[in-house]
């Protein structure tokens, strides 16, 4: 295989990989590393000075510990809901819908691109007190005054995030289900295995990496979100991201915002590792 590679010197290869390496190391690793260093700096009025203050992290835990737990909880809720809905959609498309399934999958994946902010705005106009649902119900004479429980609460946040993340979660799950062998499932059924047995012992263990991928992406994006809670959530239930963002407003407290960011990432990774281990234990192929 190496013979066909033009000018096979390693220097040429290295030069070709240089731009990507420069972007990755210079922008991604560089900015994250600097952000991490800043999380130990000292913030005073209008100024940030180099220092070493691990106490910044302690402040985060004492001041925002409860918000962090709430946010991780919302992340787990949204990720579980989205992954479940996406799995059954991908499962139906793969095993039950035939050619109709291809069309349905294409439509679902088209909604992947619709603009993140546009989707949040759409839900706000649907659920708002003078929004689409309320104005329709009033016009139909079903209610006298707008239902106020639709918007500005946790339910609206969960619905909006699920709507945004669902196509993203379908993608890896469908890819994994496509590789599941249908004859193996039919054989198990012929030998008398129940529907749930087949699902638990054959299908789910085979697609476990994709389940974990979907769950992780949904969890990280939901737990790190700040726009959805600000736009459709209640002011009393702000999420961790809202507090991170507020460090960068007028206060410009970069060290605190950085410490909060890395606390969020650290706790998220620990949680995902635990959930991954749990799934591995729970979904053993038999």
């Amino acid at each position, binding site marked *: 295989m190496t013979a066909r590679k033009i000018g096979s010197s390693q220097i040429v290869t290295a030069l070709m990989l240089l731009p990507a390496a420069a972007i990755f190391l210079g922008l991604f690793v560089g900015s994250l590393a600097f952000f991490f260093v800043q999380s130990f700096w000292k913030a005073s009025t209008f100024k940030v000075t180099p220092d070493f203050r691990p106490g910044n992290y302690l402040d985060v835990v004492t001041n925002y510990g409860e918000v962090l737990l709430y946010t991780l909880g919302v992340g787990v809720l949204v990720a579980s809901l989205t992954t479940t809905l996406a799995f*059954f959609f991908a499962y139906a498309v793969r095993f039950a819908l035939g050619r109709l399934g291809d069309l349905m999958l294409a439509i679902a994946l088209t909604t992947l691109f619709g603009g993140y902010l546009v989707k949040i705005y759409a839900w706000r106009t649907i659920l708002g007190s003078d929004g689409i649902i309320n104005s329709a119900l009033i016009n139909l004479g079903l209610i006298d005054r707008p239902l106020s429980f639709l918007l500005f609460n946790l339910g609206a946040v969960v619905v909006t995030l699920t709507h945004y993340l669902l196509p993203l979660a379908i993608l890896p799950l469908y890819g994994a289900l496509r590789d599941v062998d249908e004859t193996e499932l039919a054989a198990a059924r012929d030998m008398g295995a129940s529907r749930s047995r087949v699902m638990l012992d054959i299908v789910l263990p085979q697609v476990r990496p994709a389940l974990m991928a979907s769950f992780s992406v949904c969890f990280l994006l939901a737990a790190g979100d700040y726009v959805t809670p600000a736009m459709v959530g209640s002011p009393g239930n702000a999420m961790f991201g809202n507090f991170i963002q507020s460090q960068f407003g007028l206060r410009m407290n970069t060290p605190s915002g950085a410490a909060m960011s890395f606390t969020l990432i650290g706790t998220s990774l620990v949680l995902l590792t635990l959930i991954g281990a749990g799934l591995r234990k729970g979904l053993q192929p038999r």
Partner: protein
Amino acid sequence: MTGDRLLPRAYAFAMLVFLAVPLALCVLFSFTTSNSAAFPIPAFGFDWYARVAGNPQFQAAAWTTAEITVGCGAAATLVGLVTALGLDRLERRAAVAVLLVLCLPLMLPPLVLGLSLLTFFNMIGLKLGVAATILGHLLFTLPIVASVLYARLATMDGSAVEAARDLGASPLRAFATVTLPAIGPSLVGCMLIAMALSLDDFVIAFFVTGSNTLSTLIWGMMRTTLNPSINVVGSIIIAVSVAITALGLNVTRYRG
């Protein structure tokens, strides 16, 4: 057996309604002549489109967005192509490992990525603006372009390039006359997908653009007034990104 066939259909259909209807409603209400995005719709017209098109803030934001989208598409495709060609010269296992590492920025919440880029750009003295945003968008478009192009190159038949070389073509000429035409559709498709992803981004643009893009314009409008002009801007974003994606997927014949 009817229940067996009906349930999956009904479920998949319900999911599609959930996914598509909010976006369809957003487009529907962009054509209302009323002052609010609600029922009843008195009449359909292009009133709000005319009003938005005449708004200088919208024109500025649309221009900035176009610069970022096209710039990001071009940069991601160019760097992605060079990267994929370089990866194709490595062992398969090493290439996949490099691609996985390049994909790490996709796993970071955009808020954290945006804030660390903002802090970093301030430190090195890079002015916020179109160039800074294109650099930021490269972090999540480059890995996707490089992955798709590498997959295409890896499945290509190497003997055609070899034949061209044997017949005396220079490496560059062999690339231009054999490799490039073969991967052309993938290249165009990748560029379109990178453009759609860049167009969709709000969070990074919010922190590092310094002026308005179409999505940050919506953000500002949502905080001040709620009227169908937001539906108009939203519908434009939906139409452009869906068109770009559909074209991109069609050109590359990407499946799954």
